[in-house]
């Protein structure tokens, strides 16, 4: 039987590699063996599938979300989640779940209280028409996975139009669920793209530094140290301040990724350099050089692949840093700016204790950041265990 094990421990001896479940024989490549071990780590797989789910929902955000991220009904600010507002009975019998419109009034404590207003009913529907978008950037459509039906007579600009807020509304009367889905696109992709840039930079610079040594090494390492000396968050803030005011939100988004990557590569370059220093002294590297293989090829073919297992683990573990970095910037109002959604700027609402008390659903983006970071950490831990050569030597 398989067992969940403490994820950071080297894995003990495994059963002989020829069972019905298709365990690979020891002769398989190290990568295959690692993947095999990874698949047997339940926590890591939980993290992996969570991430698949999150990234998948971000890719299909515009289809899954009932509304566009900026779509609002201003007279429905902080509308509570509607899961409990759905009705399934109209007095005479069971009906498909439906909503009626709702309006607020201020109570004696000047708190907004929403009440459903009798009148027209709006049933929940699947594959309903709503805000138009381009699915996967390819073709234009208005079909959303779910939403309200019966809106034919409703003015789309009415500030009190009926909307479906499964997870509640934010301070401008926008659907939190839709914004979470759209926000995931930014918050989740920042990590992936940022890490990709960092790793290309870090591996190449670190590889060159370790392989060539000497003055090149000294120059590059001092540069890295200078970058690492500056406290990360303040460097982030000052770089952010350098972005021109009139940049569009997409340009700002790209700039934020660039800034985050710029801050991140130095540490990686140092570690890679250390690895490369030891690899470069291996016999096979020496023989490759002796055979006249150009330096460029030696680095790319023989040296860097041996740092890859470290790099993959490290990349996975550092993605949460980017997600948190973007969230932090957006939380301070320096990242993605309203009305564009990111989990960070959505969370900025909850910087006010009063709002959390009355509208706890504004904390959901924080929960999602938490889940994402945990998932990456579990996956990263699993990868580290899987790539750990001691897992093999332990036999």
């Amino acid at each position: 039987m398989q067992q969940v094990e403490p994820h950071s421990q080297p894995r003990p001896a495994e059963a002989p590699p020829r069972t019905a479940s298709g365990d690979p024989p020891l002769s398989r490549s190290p990568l295959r063996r690692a993947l095999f071990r990874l698949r047997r780590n339940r926590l890591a797989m939980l993290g992996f599938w969570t991430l698949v789910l999150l990234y998948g929902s971000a890719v299909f955000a515009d289809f899954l979300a009932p509304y566009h991220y900026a779509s609002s009904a201003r007279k429905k600010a902080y509308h509570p989640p509607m899961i409990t507002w759905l009705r399934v009975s109209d007095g005479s019998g069971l009906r498909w779940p439906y909503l009626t419109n709702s309006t607020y009034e201020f109570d004696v404590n000047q708190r907004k209280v929403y009440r459903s207003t009798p009148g027209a009913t709006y049933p929940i529907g699947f594959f309903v028409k709503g805000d138009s978008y381009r699915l996967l950037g390819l073709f234009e459509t208005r079909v959303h996975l779910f939403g309200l039906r019966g809106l034919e007579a409703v003015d789309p600009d009415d500030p009190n139009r009926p909307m479906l807020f499964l997870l509640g509304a934010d301070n401008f009367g926008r659907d939190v669920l839709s914004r979470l889905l759209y926000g995931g696109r930014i918050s989740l992709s920042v990590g992936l793209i940022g890490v990709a840039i960092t790793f290309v930079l870090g591996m190449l610079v670190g590889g060159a530094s370790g392989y060539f040594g000497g003055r090149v090494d000294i120059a590059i390492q001092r540069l890295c140290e200078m970058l690492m000396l500056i406290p990360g968050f303040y460097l982030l803030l000052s770089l952010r301040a350098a972005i021109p005011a009139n940049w569009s939100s997409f340009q700002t988004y790209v700039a934020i990724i660039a800034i985050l990557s710029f801050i991140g590569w130095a540490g990686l370059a140092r570690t890679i350099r250390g690895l490369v220093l030891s690899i470069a002294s291996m016999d096979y590297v020496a023989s490759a050089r002796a055979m006249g293989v150009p330096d460029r090829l030696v680095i790319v073919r023989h040296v860097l692949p041996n740092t890859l297992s470290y790099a993959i683990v490290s990349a996975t573990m550092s993605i949460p840093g980017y997600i948190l970095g973007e969230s932090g910037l957006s939380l301070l109002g320096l990242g993605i700016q309203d009305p564009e959604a990111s989990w960070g700027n959505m969370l900025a609402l909850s910087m006010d204790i009063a709002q959390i008390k009355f509208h706890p659903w504004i904390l959901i983006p924080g929960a999602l950041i938490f889940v994402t970071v945990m998932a990456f950490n579990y996956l990263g831990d699993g990868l580290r265990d899987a790539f750990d050569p001691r897992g093999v030597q332990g036999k």
Partner: protein
Amino acid sequence: MLTVARRFRRGLSLLTFGLLIIGCGGMAFSQGNSGDALLERLKQNATEFRYEVGKPGGSLTHSTISGPKTFNLAISTETSSTEILGYLFEGLTESSWLTSQMQGNLAERWETSEDGLVWTFYLRQGIKWSDGAPFTADDVVFTFQRIIYNDDIPASARPGLTIRYLDEATQEWQRGQIAVAKIDDHAVRFTLPVPFAPFLRTIGTPIYPKHILAKHVDDGSFTSTWDVGTDPGEIIGTGPFTIARYDVGERIVLRKNPHYWKTDDAGNALPYLDQVVYLVVQDIAAAVLKFQAGETDILGVTGDQYPVLKPEEAAKNFTLHRQGPNFGTTFLAFNQNRGKNPDNDRAFVEPAKLKWFTNRDFRRVVAHSVDKDSIIDNVMNGLGYPQWAAISPAAGPFHNPDVTKYAYDLKRANDLLDGLGWFDLDGDGFREDDEGNTLSFTLATNSGNDVREKVCTLLKQDLAKVGIQANTRFMEFNSLVSQLVSTYDWEAIVIGFTGGVEPHGAINLWHSSERLHLWYPLQEAPATPWEAAINDLFVRGSREMNEAKRYAIYHEFQQVASDNLPVVYTALAERITAVRNNYGNVTPTLYGLYDVRYLYVR
């Protein structure tokens, strides 16, 4: 990360970008506002209020987001310092917290000549500085001649005490000063170059001790005197309190001044309180928590916090006092600066954009896109008032309720743009002007100010619906101010100004020659006829001594301003203060909640 966020907020909130708050009397309140019942009640409170004879002792604890930056009131410009030092210094006159009428303070009474140019103030006998030295006319003359009108000292009171007038002989604009002369130890004469209506209010500026400060003015060290490093015991004033201690970043303790001159009706010494304490807290949320925990006795409350505190009133023994619309305004302005940067000869504003910004119809489009109801309900939690006129309804009869109003009407805004002939021809969702430039500009405000950020976001959404692209930009307050007053390279901005009862205080925003005339500052001659008209109205308003005629002048000014829309107003927040119930002599009025000298613990 949160700590950084807090520091940001703290840094921003202590800056005020404001006008001198000077005010003038008059109480009849304008109608036409949703809060009429509240305003009536506040007025009634003021007329019915009588001081109770209190008992000495006790203390009052405030919270503040930042401690004072200087103890030198004469040159301080931010409220964290002026609020504390206001307990230490007094003027010849003061504004009543009940009626906002001017009444004697250091001066017992005054006389004025027929033509209104010569004023004689008779000082109260027996007033002492907090170190025991007598207060005399020499101190008054010293304050005006050596501090306020001293060009080497950036005295914050100087602009308000500088009088603008047209010299009849040369037809040139003059900036006059008030001549101050000592008659005897307890009488001072002020001579004005021309009649000046806000005189009685501006003359309430704090008076400083000659026997302490004269030597610092003489040796040129005045601006570095009385900084926060000074032993607080050396800060000498005539006011009801002195600074007992200042623990930077922790607390400021103010102690009763034993030499204070004022007594209550029964002849007991004032103030009643022994101490006033200011606790320095991290941010607004911490201030609320301290108040809820009973560590502070008084708290300024925002609309968002009102529903949190309201249910706790009885259990925690306090009352939330609603005090009507604030004087401070939040507005949107467009850069209409026609000038060029002398360094690189580039226009401050791109010519295409300048063409839109100087177009009145364009500004009307924007005015029709401001959703004041949503701002009030969603940003101020329903505790706010729409603002249409340049002068807040809080300013009483000066407020003009009948100015041109631009209702939130996106259809009207669209029609206006169609009328200008600007359509979206390339199908990107945004209109282009005659020359094919996409209508797109940067809308900036300071980060950390919740209300302004949300106003920007709402406006951005609405402008997008009419085909105008506004890129919101939330920047650090200091860089925002530097764009406004030195580099002039902004496009549109949402910012606020403080205000007061006296409309003349706003001259440094409205007069075209002023540095804070945001949309085109420091003009040699007014660029537009309506700016010339506003200049003229402000100068006439300051010279008109007949109250009714003054009201008419300022009503006309508000009409001109609303017709031409150099600034588009948003909404005024309600002033709300929470105070513990165990304090006596407290009642909410339009102008205040109590006089600290009469405040006592029941």
